[in-house]
């Protein structure tokens, strides 16, 4: 039976949702890389971002930015793959509602090219991580089969990853992360290289998965403004400040954020018909992006 306090309610909400505890807190993160000539390249500087648990809704947040704006660096730091030079990334594991420094493995990542274990078939690509995380083989197999069934991949269960189409591979990569019962997943450029129909399919897929639990939090790293606006409840623009002469300074940070819940654009299937959607999209594309 659905619990109205913890389970997701599909579709638009009647009133502004209640914002609960903080799930991810990124504060003043900086990341510098030493260069061959002895100088330092500043990829991120004072990068700050917070994601809060929204009652009865999952969290889908997009981090938008042009190429070279530090999106991948941010992803790696949030996932715990790289340590920031300064600042901190705190995350809650959901159950305890207590923030602690992120560790690699806390956050699921669906990488851009959807790497999988090529030497394992699809079913075992799902079972293997779950078993290594301590789940029994039987339980892992049951869960994997359920997920494959739910996401229309049963026929591909015994296929090798190299035999999958791009879309199937993406779904398997997402399911692999779902096997571990983690609520926080980063998707790196999930719309990259897809045609409009498949972009909509991916948006539906992410939304469906996200709505399975109110603590589910998806951070989407992308430069696709339209898709990010359609799927997200919050949108952050990552870029570099410019000096008076218009020269970009070193170190990217969040330059602007959009609360799409407050804008009345979140959780709606007819979002593309709304004038505000077009306004924001135009603003980002023509005004904000060129400044980043």
């Amino acid at each position, binding site marked *: 039976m659905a619990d109205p306090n913890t389970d997701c309610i599909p579709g638009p909400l009647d009133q502004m949702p209640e914002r609960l505890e903080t799930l991810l807190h990124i504060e003043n993160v900086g990341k510098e890389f030493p260069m061959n000539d002895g100088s330092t390249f500043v990829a991120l500087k004072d990068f700050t971002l917070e994601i809060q648990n929204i009652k009865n809704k999952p969290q889908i947040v997009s981090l938008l930015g042009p190429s070279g704006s530090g999106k991948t660096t941010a992803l790696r730091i949030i*996932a*715990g*793959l790289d340590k920031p030079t300064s600042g901190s990334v705190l995350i809650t594991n959901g159950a305890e509602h207590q923030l602690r420094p992120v560790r*690699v*493995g806390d*956050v*699921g*990542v669906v*990488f851009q*090219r959807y*790497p*999988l*274990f*090529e*030497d394992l*078939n699809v079913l075992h690509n799902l079972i*293997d*991580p779950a078993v*290594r*995380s301590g789940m029994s083989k039987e339980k892992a197999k049951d869960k994997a089969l359920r997920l494959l069934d739910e996401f229309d991949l049963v026929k591909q269960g015994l296929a*090798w990853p*190299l*035999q999958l189409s791009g879309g199937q591979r993406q779904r398997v990569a997402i399911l*692999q*992360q779902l096997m*571990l019962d983690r609520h926080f997943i980063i998707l790196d450029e999930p719309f990259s290289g897809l045609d409009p129909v498949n972009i909509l399919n991916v948006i539906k897929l992410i939304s469906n998965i996200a709505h399975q639990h109110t603590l589910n939090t998806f951070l989407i790293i992308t430069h696709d403004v339209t898709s990010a606006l359609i799927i997200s409840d919050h949108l952050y623009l990552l870029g570099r400040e410019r000096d008076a002469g218009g020269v970009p300074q070193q170190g990217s940070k969040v330059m602007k954020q959009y609360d799409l819940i407050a804008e009345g654009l979140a959780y709606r299937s007819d979002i593309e018909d709304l004038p505000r959607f077009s306004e924001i999209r135009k603003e980002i594309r023509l005004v904000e992006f060129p400044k980043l």
Partner: protein
Amino acid sequence: METSAKSPATIASDSGYPLREMVRVYGAVGGFARSHIVIGWIVLFLLVWFFNPIKAMPYPGEVLTAFQRMWNAPGSSGLVYNVYVTLKLNLVGVLISSVLSLVISYLAVIPLFQPFNKFVQWLRYIPIVGFNLVFLTLFAIGWPMKVAMLTTGMSFFLVTSMTGVIVGIPQMKYELARVLGYNDWHVFYSVVVRPTLPAMIDMIAQNAAMGWVMITAIETFNRTEGGIGSQIYAYTSTNQLAEVYAYLLIIGVIAVLEDGLLSLIKRVLFPYSLVAERA
């Protein structure tokens, strides 16, 4: 192991003229045409052999007669005995050097062992005879010394090839395992060892071929037990070239069989490698 050029589907196109396709870059050649190409090359080889103008090279009939003489030769100068001695040495050498090299190569992912791995790779530049004195001190002349020389010589090259496979693992594979919560041991097994085993078999096959080159040199140096190498040396010194070529043919046949066997093992144990080859 022999490698064959793949036909990228994007490039290949069937013009409808098989002969034209045979000479095009990645021409779309079917199985029937491919078998004819192979037969054509065999016929060409035989023609060159039958009518070759080089007097030093024995004709096929002479080699066939040499086979007969070698087959009928008694005891340790016989064909079966010498092939057995060399084949045994080859198999033992391949087995030991493969295990040793796998261990040294896989340990290269651990920083502590990386300098040792580099050192072993560097040793491939040193002629194997440079180690003779060391081997003479450590091993008895005969079988143990031959095994030691072959194993050591092959391992230097195997470690180089195998480490190349490990270095080629994309960083993203490690990161996938890390974000899935794998510990060091799981990463090592799931990213480094398990997926590279088919490529390691390829490396073993390549170096097994190199092993045959070393074997003949080692058996020439150490002739106490006989073997193909010592026989080739003996027949060369008495100018019995038909016998030499007969043994070279045997080496060729054994090498092809060994290649096929390793390829079969790879396909049976790691069926996905077949998919990867076709991809």
